[in-house]
């Protein structure tokens, strides 16, 4: 790939989403360039991100549902064993952090952990395989292969991470108000940490702190995955015989990173929701 275009074109090709939306001039269409994708503004959708994330989510749902349907309290099969291990791991984390009764938290944590992990795992697929395949498919449908984009790691798309983070943020607000009432929630924002005489300062501090939760959640995951993907792309620019020298250690290191990032997202979600339940 790299030989056909300049390095910067190769990199930007890899970092552009397959965007479908209403272009001011071309109408409803796939964006041909990153520039066009940007011009579409908010009313566009990253088809590749949606495709891969929903596909991986469906895989998660399918696999766990299959086990749930046949779950036996007797001797578990290998798939059930695997799924149970994950569920017990998540349950341990939830019960050690979250001490309130809430049927949503544990399944939420499980979904986040497995889904984010699966999306991150796409990072380990060699960077050119799926985009190349997509180009061939696009070509078969009569599209210019150079303008068929395919970003396979949904978590390197800020929309994906922000989407999840906003959903978590909505839950934080919801449970804060449900547990403490509107007054209690506002009081928490206004009268901490320094008492009522410094109300404006408290309010400023607490609101920034509150907003920092979803933003840090989203940006931490996005940043890590984006940077990791970027390095894979840069390694792919090396001569083919030298790539393994860097790609192998980086991929091995990344096995740790993708798991860790999924774990961090899950744990922070639990922590934030536990804080939302906490009454002062």
């Amino acid at each position, binding site marked *: 790939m790299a030989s056909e275009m300049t390095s910067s074109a190769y990199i930007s090709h890899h970092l552009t989403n397959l965007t479908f939306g209403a272009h001011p001039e071309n109408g409803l269409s796939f964006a041909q360039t990153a520039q066009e994708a940007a011009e579409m503004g908010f009313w566009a959708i990253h088809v590749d991100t949606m495709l891969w994330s929903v596909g991986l989510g469906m895989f998660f749902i399918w696999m766990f549902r299959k086990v749930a349907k046949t779950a036996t309290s007797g001797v578990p099969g290998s798939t059930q064993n695997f799924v149970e291990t994950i569920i017990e791991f998540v349950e341990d984390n939830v019960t050690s952090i979250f001490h309130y009764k809430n049927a949503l938290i544990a399944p939420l944590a499980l979904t986040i952990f497995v889904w984010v992990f699966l999306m991150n795992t796409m990072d380990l697929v060699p960077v050119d395989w799926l985009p190349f395949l997509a180009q061939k498919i696009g070509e078969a449908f009569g599209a210019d292969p150079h303008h068929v984009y395919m970003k396979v790691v949904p978590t390197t798309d800020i929309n994906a991470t922000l989407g*999840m983070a906003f959903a978590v943020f909505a839950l934080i607000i919801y449970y804060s108000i449900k547990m403490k009432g509107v007054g209690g929630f506002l009081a928490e924002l206004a009268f901490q940490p320094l008492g009522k005489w410094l109300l404006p300062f408290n309010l400023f501090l607490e609101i920034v702190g509150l907003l920092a939760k979803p933003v840090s959640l989203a940006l931490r995951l996005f940043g890590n995955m984006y940077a990791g993907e970027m390095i894979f792309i840069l390694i792919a620019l090396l001569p083919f015989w030298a790539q393994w020298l860097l790609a192998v250690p980086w991929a091995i290191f990344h096995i740790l990173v993708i798991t860790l990032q999924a774990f961090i997202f899950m744990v922070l979600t639990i922590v934030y929701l536990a804080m939302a339940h906490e009454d002062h």
Partner: protein
Amino acid sequence: MNINLTIIGQIIAFAFFVVFCMKYVWPPITGALAERKKKIAEGLDAADRAQRDLVLAQEKAMSDMRKSKEEAAAVIEQANKRANQIVDEAKEKAREEAARLVTAAQAEIDQEANRAREALRSQVAALVVAGAEKILEASVDADAHAQLVEKLAAEL
């Protein structure tokens, strides 16, 4: 790097997955886990109980065995005693029988002896008479001297 509709699509997908997971994935699996935990606890409990039962059964078996041994010993002792008793009784009876036999024999002997003596005595009387006849060369009236001869015979 553009923020667009994808974010809303992601929120919807995320919400769907979470709700699905909460309704159809989490409860059955954790239910199975809890049930297995219960089963294992029950199994361990049953094993404990069986262990206890085994110890009790062993103790019972031991005590039963001891009791039967004691009973057997008692029976043997009793049998021995009875055997001795029977032997003693038999000995006693034999002794009595022997004594009875001896007495009977003695009586018979005495009787025999008496009879022999009687016979002898009458023979002696006849001999004496015959002797006396020879000596006297005269016949002795046996009837006349019967009293005398009797007297003589009684002295023998």
